[in-house]
């Protein structure tokens, strides 16, 4: 090769034409090389986004979490920046962190931990107190935030916190903490950012009930102690906390460089302490405590903790008396060019089926909805609205990545109308047995645009994430029928929709998949 190189050099010295050609190649190389260099940030971002979707953490940044915001205020005061498709939210106490800590599923749930979600759901009050360290992607320093959250399940009130990751004018990520106080009817959102401001929102009784339940499920999901997250815990020690003998349960997500530890009273199954540890650096094997909090159940909330008086010095965007009404049950919005699909709410049933309310509209198109729903029987194909959610898939990055063969087929269940807007209630049945004992599941919607039939099978974007908690055996009426009534001008669910009817429809849909079976 050296000899060839030398001969080429000699030739170039004596041949002007080849020398000119070679010079032009060098110029091309410089120009295209510079172009490619400018693309590398894009490639690095691409790598990060893929790894965030798969593992919940980026390849080059400090681990952070990527999670849909809390369900409570539907329209946050702080406009949150989005990094490409991924939205970073960090929850203090009750929300956030779930993607980061998604466990890799093992063979079976640990004995003893399965009592924890049950005990928390039946508690009168839950108090969580501790701290959390937040590090923005690429951030130079850590931010430590106190956790001091109360959920009063008996009186339907709570006080929780949350941190948004957003960007400042210089493009740097900054954490913006906020707090939510809910008194059973009003939500007070306090943002403690550069601009400290307060906004009030008022809820209907059903919205309040749903928000409380969702808040509790967020806690379980975030702390990796819901039914869907218990796999992988092993007992690693024993300690006495506040007079209770506690087993220490540890779940290490080695691929992610994280672990959670739970101190659970061996007599009652009550969780007493929770910790989240992370490898300080990929190159350093030592663990660093990122968050810890103690959990107290059935304590008495201190006086004033649910007061709706804004602290002094905060800018008031409105007052409690002038609180804006919380509209509908808005959950998530998808856009396909001119077509918009909004998911109002969804619930997972214990057999793994999902009931979801959604609506769709298209700019500049006449609303075809009225005729679409005429004589549409339950079990029929999902109506051909401008955009329709024909099915659900496993979301990349969710716990069920290894269950990628499961999908959910949608069928019409019912329609409700609110202020002229029809809400389609669809029933999504898994393509194989996939029961859900409890906790939160995450789905990616299969959205189809009508009439061209173009489908988005977007299973990777966290902002297309649909979270749903699992209804208990006695909750169908309270939540499914309650939500139907909420989204119906008549304030009642369609009479034929009952738990038994839905179970029967699920069975029919499953049976119809067998070769030669009639459609339901």
């Amino acid at each position, binding site marked *: 090769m050296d000899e060839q190189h030398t001969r080429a050099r000699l030739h170039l010295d004596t041949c002007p034409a080849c020398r000119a050609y070679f010079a*032009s*190649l060098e110029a*091309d*190389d410089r*120009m*295209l*090389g510079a*172009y*490619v260099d*400018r*693309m590398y*940030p*894009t*490639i690095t*971002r*691409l*790598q990060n*986004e*893929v*790894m965030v*979707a*798969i*593992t919940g953490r980026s*390849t080059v940044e400090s681990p952070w979490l990527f999670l849909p915001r809390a369900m409570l205020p539907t329209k946050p005061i702080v406009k949150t*920046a*989005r*990094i*490409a*498709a991924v939205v970073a939210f960090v929850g203090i106490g009750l929300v956030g962190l779930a993607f980061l800590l998604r466990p*890799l599923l093992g063979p079976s749930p640990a004995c003893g931990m399965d009592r924890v979600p049950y005990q928390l759901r039946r508690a009168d009050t839950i108090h969580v107190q501790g701290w959390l360290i937040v590090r923005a992607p690429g951030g130079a320093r850590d931010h430590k935030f106190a956790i001091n959250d109360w959920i009063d399940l008996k009186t339907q009130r709570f006080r929780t916190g949350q941190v948004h990751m957003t*960007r400042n004018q210089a*493009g740097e990520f900054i954490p913006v903490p906020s707090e939510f106080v809910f008194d059973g009817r009003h939500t007070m959102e306090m943002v403690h950012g550069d601009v400290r401001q307060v906004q009030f929102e008022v809820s209907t009784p059903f919205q309040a009930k749903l928000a409380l339940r969702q808040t509790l499920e967020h806690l379980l999901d975030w702390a990796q102690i819901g039914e869907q997250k218990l796999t992988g815990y092993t007992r690693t020690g024993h300690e006495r906390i506040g007079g209770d003998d506690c087993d220490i349960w540890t779940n290490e997500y080695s*691929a*992610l*460089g994280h672990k959670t530890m739970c101190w659970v009273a061996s007599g009652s199954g009550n969780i007493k302490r929770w910790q989240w540890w992370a490898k300080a650096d990929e190159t350093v094997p030592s663990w660093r405590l990122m968050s810890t909090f103690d959990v107290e159940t059935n304590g008495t909330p201190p006086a004033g903790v649910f007061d709706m008086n804004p602290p002094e010095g905060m800018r008031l965007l409105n007052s409690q008396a002038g609180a804006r009404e919380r509209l509908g049950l808005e959950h998530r919005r*998808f*856009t*396909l*060019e001119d077509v918009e699909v909004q998911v109002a709410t969804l619930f997972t049933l214990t057999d793994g089926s999902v009931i979801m309310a959604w609506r769709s509209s298209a700019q500049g198109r006449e609303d075809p909805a009225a005729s679409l729903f005429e004589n549409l029987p339950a079990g029929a194909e999902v109506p051909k609205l401008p955009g329709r959610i024909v099915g659900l898939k496993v979301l*990349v990055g969710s716990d069920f*990545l*290894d269950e*990628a063969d499961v999908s959910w087929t949608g069928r019409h269940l019912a329609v409700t109308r609110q202020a002229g807007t029809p809400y389609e209630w669809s029933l999504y049945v898994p393509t194989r047995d996939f029961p859900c004992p409890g906790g939160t599941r995450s789905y990616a919607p299969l959205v189809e645009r009508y009439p*061209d039939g*173009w489908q*988005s099978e*977007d*299973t*990777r*974007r966290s*902002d297309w994430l649909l979270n749903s908690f699992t209804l208990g055996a006695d909750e169908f009426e309270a939540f499914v029928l309650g939500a139907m009534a909420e989204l119906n001008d008549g304030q009642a669910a369609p009479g034929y929709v009952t738990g038994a009817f839905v179970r029967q429809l699920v069975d029919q849909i499953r049976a119809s998949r067998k070769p030669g079976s009639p459609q339901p």
Partner: protein
Amino acid sequence: MDVDAEEKLIAACRDGDRSAYGDLIRAHSGRVFAICLGILGNRHDAEDVAQQALLKGFMEIRSLRDPDRFGRWIAQIARNLCLDVVRRRKPPLVMPSVADNVEQVDTDEYRRLEAALAKLDSDYRVPLLLFYFEGRSTKSIGEALGTTQGTIQTRLSRARKQLRQWLATEGDVP
């Protein structure tokens, strides 16, 4: 990355080690992106489809028959996805993004080069980008694209010539 190391990473991915995939995509995302950019002609679509391809690669890694051919396999996934997009001729989903905020301000020269690249036929653009993104040999690019080394050399030469012509003209790329 040598073949042995890559095979070990693939085996780890198949066993559920998601972080191992990070090492794999660090080695191959440049190629995937270059292919997508080459076929689709604009970086935003390319980034979107490249992301899909890399995720699809992870989801389907158990179906990879020859662990020493990951690069070609993921490249094929990317090409197929790009061709789907081209066939559908539908714009991507409208998603809010601040990605543009973090990118450098484009100079006129850069914009003209990008416009010229976008105008280039994808048969020329793909090998050109693979050549510069990956620093790959013409033989390797030929193998990746299922054609001969000679064809790649010809396409590279024509691509450069065409770019030079366009960029030599004043004003917008014709």
